[in-house]
């Protein structure tokens, strides 16, 4: 018992920070319906600024705390609310997730551009001296960090409980989660209520950030990302509703981690893999066992029907004549591109475009799962990694060509996706996103590390393992291979989209209730689209590995899964063209940024561009490129077919600018659907 307590007590400060962040997540969700993925980044931002002000600007701790936590943190919360989340329709779960994710990857990138280093050492404690042992508890020394964490957490939690249970603002916050528009009809200023919630939760994020910093000794974003998973797990057990449960699970997790650290043999696979995976296991447990998590994120707003319908894709609104012109232009572009790649393209740009083709295949998997399946998967880079690592291991162990390994890799990635889909069969929206990110982190921490080497060496792709002159620096074989793979994948995706399965998936996206009511097997569709997406991602992963001539864990880390989603939704997630545009934008911008002085940010600038580009998803859920395509298509159409009645239907955010022709005229007899329904 003495041992147990001795191991467990040091876990309480960790648990307190988990609890604080979990409470902040619950509070934000309760008041706004947003599961804020950016929370870890908000915490990191405050901790970074706090440490910077104390260590680099030599400000007193109190002043730095006021600036970074009392002023900056709530301000960031208010900015997120005012500029982003407030504009998202309550029912649009994917837009909320993508916006949060884009901030999660964007804020640290901004910091690394503004400041030369994003890592700082020995962050200070806000209350008590970390080097002083204030007392002993069951023989365990309790230093200033532990005391600070416990005191700050307790005070914050008591204040929050009082706020939520016994104040008018707390009551209004609880009402706002159901429908902010409904409480507005009761005379409540819902904007102020929601803004208050964002400010308070921002403050808590900042507080958790500065509390956590001295525990680790070094300030780095990865710790805050891990903190997020632990907080997600605690919040999930609380069904994003109960503050006491979130606190309890958070603290228990902190204690469990240090107890396991104490008992598990040092250096064993258990202490290295299982321990780091504990928060993910707890999260998965909550997702599978807590019934409330299955329906989380499903729209309950009685006034949701006043939201406008989603905008159509460009291909759906253009006239048939124009459709033919566009198709011909696509073929011309394809032929011109292929001829250029095979003849005069400079080597440097040839490599860039080859990488673009490989990324396009991986991104097509996101088109399948998100664009067609209507679900957000945050483990597509992981599935690509499963394909690549399997291909490399199979090629090595069986002495087979890597291209044969690629097919096996695609199959294994599909199987992993199917297992994941089967395990998460009852989850949709938020729950599924959390499940997939948990899976990505488990693979990163526990599995990829085991398969990332062959005979103790990192895995390099050599000419002999691929053959066919594909890695010949003077040849064009890789381009031909990548074009064939991409073309086959695009054709298959299009056929699925235009076929029965695509229609079933469209029905599921529109109304899963009605889809099952007409005989669509939702479980099978869920598993099928995951499996297909896994196969495409796996194939793309191996293609990417061949292009990079190496298979390593960095390329397929969980953070890339987030970046990939952000990149694809920025350009357009509904169509294969969107995935290809995303693939090429990703590598072309990367290349262009090499011409920019590195002090301006390098790759961080790329992340920033896409992260902030993804924010346009709020206004244009079809993707910014898809939006521009539709806009320009309609302008050309009006110009070229001025004297003819267009057959277009232009419902969507830009409908006001272009209304008056096409189907709208025909449906004019119907009253305004948004108001009517």
């Amino acid at each position: 018992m003495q041992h147990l307590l001795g191991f467990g007590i040091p876990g309480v400060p960790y648990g307190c920070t988990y609890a604080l962040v979990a409470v902040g997540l619950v509070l934000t969700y309760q008041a706004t319906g947003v599961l804020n993925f950016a929370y870890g980044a908000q915490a990191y931002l405050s901790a970074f600024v706090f440490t910077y002000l104390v260590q680099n600007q030599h400000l007193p701790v109190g002043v730095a705390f006021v600036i970074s936590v009392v002023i900056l943190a709530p301000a960031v919360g208010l900015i997120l609310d005012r500029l982003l989340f407030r504009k998202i329709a309550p029912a649009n779960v994917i837009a909320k997730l993508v916006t949060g994710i884009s901030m999660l990857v964007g804020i640290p990138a901004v910091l690394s551009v503004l400041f030369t280093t994003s890592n700082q050492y020995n962050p200070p404690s806000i209350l008590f001296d970390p080097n002083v042992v204030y007392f002993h508890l069951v023989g365990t020394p309790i230093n200033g960090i532990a005391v600070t964490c416990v005191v700050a957490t307790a005070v914050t939690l008591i204040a929050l409980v009082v706020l939520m249970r016994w104040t008018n603002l707390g009551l209004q916050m609880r009402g706002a989660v159901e429908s902010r528009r409904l409480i507005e009809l009761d005379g409540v200023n819902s904007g102020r209520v929601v803004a208050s919630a964002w400010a308070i939760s921002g403050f808590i994020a900042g507080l958790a950030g500065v509390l956590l910093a001295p525990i680790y000794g070094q300030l780095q974003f990865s710790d805050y990302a891990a903190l997020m998973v632990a907080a997600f797990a605690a919040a999930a057990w609380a069904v994003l509703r109960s503050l006491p449960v979130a606190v309890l699970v958070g603290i228990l997790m902190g204690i469990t981690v240090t107890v396991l650290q104490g008992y598990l043999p040092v250096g064993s696979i258990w202490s290295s893999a299982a321990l780091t995976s504990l928060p993910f296991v707890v999260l998965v447990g909550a997702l599978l066992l807590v019934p409330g998590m299955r329906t989380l994120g499903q729209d309950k707003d009685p006034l949701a029907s006043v939201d406008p319908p989603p905008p159509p894709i460009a291909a759906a609104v253009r006239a048939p004549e124009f459709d033919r012109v566009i198709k011909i232009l696509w073929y011309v572009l394809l032929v011109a591109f292929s001829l250029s790649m095979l003849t005069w393209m400079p080597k440097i740009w040839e490599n860039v475009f080859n990488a673009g083709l490989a990324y396009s295949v991986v991104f097509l998997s996101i088109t399948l799962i998100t664009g067609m399946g209507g679900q957000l998967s945050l483990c597509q880079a992981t599935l690509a990694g499963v394909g690549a690592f399997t291909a490399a291991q199979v090629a090595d162990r069986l002495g087979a060509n890597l291209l044969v390994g690629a097919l096996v890799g695609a199959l294994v990635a599909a199987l992993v996706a199917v297992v994941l889909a089967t395990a998460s069969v009852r989850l949709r929206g938020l729950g599924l996103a959390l499940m997939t990110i948990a899976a990505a982190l488990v693979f990163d921490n526990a599995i990829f590390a085991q398969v990332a080497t062959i005979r103790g060496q990192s895995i390099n792709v050599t000419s002999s393992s691929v053959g066919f002159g594909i890695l010949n620096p003077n040849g064009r074989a890789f381009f031909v291979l990548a074009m064939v793979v991409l073309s086959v994948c695009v054709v298959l995706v299009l056929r699925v989209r235009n076929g029965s399965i695509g229609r079933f998936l469209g029905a599921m996206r529109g109304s899963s209730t009605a889809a099952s009511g007409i005989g669509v097997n939702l479980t099978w569709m869920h598993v099928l689209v995951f499996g297909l997406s896994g196969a495409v991602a796996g194939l793309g992963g191996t293609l990417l590995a061949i292009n990079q001539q190496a298979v390593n864990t960095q390329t397929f880390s969980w953070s890339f899964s987030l970046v990939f989603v952000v990149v694809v939704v920025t350009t357009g997630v509904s169509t294969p063209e969107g995935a290809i545009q995303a693939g090429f934008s990703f590598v072309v911008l990367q290349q262009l940024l090499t011409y920019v002085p590195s002090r301006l940010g390098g790759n961080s600038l790329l992340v920033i561009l896409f992260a902030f580009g993804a924010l346009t998803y709020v206004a244009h859920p079809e993707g910014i490129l898809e939006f521009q395509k539709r806009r320009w298509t309609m302008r050309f159409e009006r110009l070229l077919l001025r004297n003819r009645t267009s057959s277009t239907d232009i419902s969507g955010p830009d409908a006001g600018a272009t209304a008056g022709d096409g189907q709208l005229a025909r449906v004019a007899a119907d009253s305004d659907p948004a108001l009517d329904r």
Partner: protein
Amino acid sequence: MALTANAEALLRVSEVTKTFGGVAAVDGVSFSVRPGESVGLVGPNGAGKTTLFNCVCGQLRPERGTIELNGRSLNGMATFERARLGIGRTYQRVEVFSDMNVRDHLIVSVRARWRQGRLWRDLCNLSKPTADERERVDAVLDLVGLSDRADTSVSALGLGSCRLVELARALIAEPVLLMADEPSSGLDVHETRELGAVLRQVQRDQGMAMILIEHDLEMVAEVVDRTVVMNLGQVVAEGHFDTVMADPIVRSAYLGLHE
């Protein structure tokens, strides 16, 4: 409460109970529907009518009781399996596939009902609508009066048209039992009369059974053969429309009229 014990019953609901947090939304309900029969299910808001529908369709699992279709137990059967047995449904809160046009609603329904969606057919580009499918879609759209909207996205339709899309989507699957949940909600008087005529005609032509939840009692009287009245989760009366509406219990519970 009277249980219609009928050996020829198409649908037999026996002692079905569904509770939410200890409150019995449906409490030991029993009734049956014969093939080709049209039954009105009426009662005040909160009587448990839609909950009962959800239990029959499989969207809710009752705690007690059995539900049989053509003598086959539906207990434990998933919603999509029940749909494939021929249970068609429209919804109280309209449920359409927002990014599809009207025609696709019907095609997807046909293919789901008869399990015609196959991945290999999609991959081989063999999933384009067949002449037979197009013909059937056109016939049903003509029946419900949506022919001129076949290629319109449902996002551009008003509530009344969306209700017709729901009905067409159910009808094209040639259900043996159609369960219509307040189909006239949101329609004006003229549209309601037309809808009633369509329902009567389809039922007569296709010989399907129908359960109609409806607050428009005039429409119920015109369409149904028999009426079941529910109140507080229980069946309080059953029989011919005029008879049950004259029942003092019904007048008290449903219409708020006291003798």
